[in-house]
């Protein structure tokens, strides 16, 4: 190819990265919530509704279902095409995007993505028994890992690759803050008597992010809220921590042209993290902090979108008016 990356293919690669990351996070989150239900004693309150709020789909859910029962919530999040954020919907978008990315995504990875969608369609549609659900939610993240691994090892690490990774990390950062947020609305936390269940929810948060072993290795202390939150937000080596995602976004953006605005948005969030005493935040304050992170992540996405994907009419050359921003570049590389 010549030296240019089309906005349209960059955008689809970015969204492909987001859809697959979203699918994987959602699958692990649902699977882990199922585990948590098994661990919890019946007398303690717990429901499936936090999963709806995490995924920000409360309004859609309310129009489609009456009660946030296990059956309704899992069906809504897994195989319901009326929910545009469901696993099956996300994989449908991913498949549609990948069709238009032939020649950019390695052919084998394209086939893996198509197979993944077919698997989900065949195994995760409609009502599922607990055991079928558990199996499907194990297979889907494994297949996504296979795709990620294949892409990483075989795709040209060019601008498209960069957009794929940006999509991964924007989505991952967002999901990490949302998953931590489950813990802030924790009925177990305020239970009068501390007992074996007090930090159950935080153990579950760690498991949702595949981070239990890493936590124990790094922190070498029992699992409790402030340590878990500090670890998942601030650790520089944990691939699913917010800080790690931000560092990855920063590195990716630095290799792309015209990235100053998006980089400024990333740096604003980094400073926000540094200036917050994360381990001292509790309850509503923590929730507010995580909300702030999500707003800033949305801003990072906006900047990426505006810089690389969308062309405002003002940026298209006028007859005798060419500001610095609209100055077209010329290729000398063909």
């Amino acid at each position, binding site marked *: 190819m010549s030296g240019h990356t*089309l906005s349209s293919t960059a955008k689809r690669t970015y969204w492909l990265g987001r859809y697959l990351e979203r699918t994987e996070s959602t699958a692990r989150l649902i699977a882990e919530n199922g585990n948590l239900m098994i661990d919890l004693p019946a007398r303690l309150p717990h429901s499936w509704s936090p999963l709806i709020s995490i995924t920000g789909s409360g309004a859609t859910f309310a129009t489609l279902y009456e009660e946030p029962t296990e059956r309704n919530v899992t069906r809504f999040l897994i195989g319901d095409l009326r929910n545009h954020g469901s696993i099956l919907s996300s994989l449908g978008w991913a498949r549609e995007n990948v069709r238009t990315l032939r020649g950019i995504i390695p052919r084998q990875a394209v086939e893996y993505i198509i197979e993944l969608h077919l698997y989900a369609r065949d195994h995760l549609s409609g009502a599922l028994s607990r055991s079928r659900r558990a199996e499907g939610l194990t297979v889907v993240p494994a297949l996504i890992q296979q795709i990620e691994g294949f892409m990483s090892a075989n795709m040209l690490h060019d601008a498209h690759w960069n957009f794929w990774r940006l999509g991964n990390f924007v989505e991952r950062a967002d999901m990490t803050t949302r998953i931590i947020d489950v813990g802030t609305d924790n009925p177990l936390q305020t239970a009068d008597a501390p007992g074996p269940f007090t930090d159950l929810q935080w153990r579950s948060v760690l498991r949702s992010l595949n981070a239990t072993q890493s936590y124990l290795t790094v922190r070498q202390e029992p699992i409790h809220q402030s340590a878990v939150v500090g670890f998942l937000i601030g650790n520089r080596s944990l691939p699913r921590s917010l800080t790690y995602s931000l560092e990855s976004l920063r590195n990716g953006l630095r290799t792309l042209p015209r990235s100053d605005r998006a980089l400024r948005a990333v740096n604003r969030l980094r400073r926000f993290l540094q200036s917050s005493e994360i381990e001292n935040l509790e309850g509503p304050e923590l929730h507010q902090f995580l909300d702030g992170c999500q707003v800033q992540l949305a801003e990072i996405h906006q900047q990426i979108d505006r810089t690389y994907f969308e062309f405002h009419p003002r940026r298209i050359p006028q007859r005798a008016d060419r500001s610095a921003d609209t100055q*077209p570049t010329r290729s000398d590389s063909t």
Partner: protein
Amino acid sequence: MSIKWQEYSAEGLWDELITAGGRARPGAGSLCRMLAKLSDEELNARKAAAELAIRSMGITFTVYTGEGSGSIDREWPFDIIPRLLLKKEWDQISAGLTQRVKALNCFIDDVYHDQRVFADGVLPREYIEKSREFRGECVGIEPPHRIWSHVCGSDLVRDSDGRVYVLEDNLRVPSGVSYMLENREVMKRVFPELFEDYVIHPVDDYPARLASCLRTLTSVKSPQIAVLTPGIYNSAYFEHAYLANAMAAQLVEGSDLVVGKDDYVYMKTIDGLVRVDVIYRRIDDLFLDPDVFKPDSMLGVPGIVRAWRAGNVALANAPGCGVADDKVIYTYVPDLVRYYLAEEPLLPNVPSYRCVDKEQRDYVLDNLDELVVKPANESGGYGMLIGPKASRAERNRFARLIRANPRNYMAQPMLKLSTAPTLVDEHAEPRHLDLRPFILSGASSYVTMGGLTRVALRKGSTVVNSSQGGGSKDTWVVDLE
């Protein structure tokens, strides 16, 4: 069973490889001997190797599967027995094609300027005025080198007398060249030993030739070239991507491009807007620019014709070039060669009758059961009458159509297309074929070495389109040693 040439017979037809007496034609000897030596297992192994190569190289064509469900990619049907052409014969054909396309480009340019050809009485003016492919928007435009059809694919057939005729010239957006290139790659994998026995002229310089042809259409020193595709659902998308890749050009869809108020064409990239100097467009005229042609076209680029008229972007092929891609204009091509070039045509047309002429029309109407009737502006075999195979009712319907709109029809005798041995199970059977070479025209011209041989895989069929049971063969232009 394996291949036994003594049992092979193309009765009454011209076969490209085997003479009526059952002998190999000049140049085909070693190929035929080698094929006859292969056992069933070996033949099947080679066939499987070809299929594997096609799969792993991802050579596909897109077939629509019906409403709503979109399309699927099928693997390219390929026959492993190549078609041979002697270099000496090919040089003559090639010269004839060059001459023909040169005259056609002169004609298109004349149509959009002085229209001398009508004033001088070579063909009637009303042909053009009524042509669906005439674009008033193109009048007075002077494209670089005054070339309008930069990439032409002409379909050649050989009749039972062994003569090669031009069946039609595809001057708009001909496709198939990527399959010509891929067929050769597959063949090298399947029969590497044959490439030692033969001096086979390479075909793989085509993308480089196309790129340099496109570069001659602009004065920009290192021009940005883009291939404009209607997108992944187009049957030739594989080819669009293939050529863009092989030319190191950018593959774009209409929505990737934008025309500024400065009348330049830009593509939207992550670096910002990048000017595009030459566009090899694989979209039909009418979909190219919703500002000028079909206003509801989602495939095109608003303003692109304005940019072209301003000379700020080169379009290949130029809008309006289809005016010469008309079955009735076709009947005049030998006259056009004489008129514009003052030369005798080197390649014959298939003898044709113009229905607009009373005498010829009467002959056509009296002999509909022996003729093929073609409408002026359709392609891909649509709207045709194949007299000998048609029912009486169909022939009557065509008689009415011809009388109602004689300008829109021409007729030709039914040719007996030549055949070539084609693998059926484990033996060879004759199957009809044609040949589509590609002719490039820019500052200079170029003809592919051979072209794409399309073969009708069904016994007796002459339909070579891949969507309707056609396949292809590698085409070898060889030197006689």
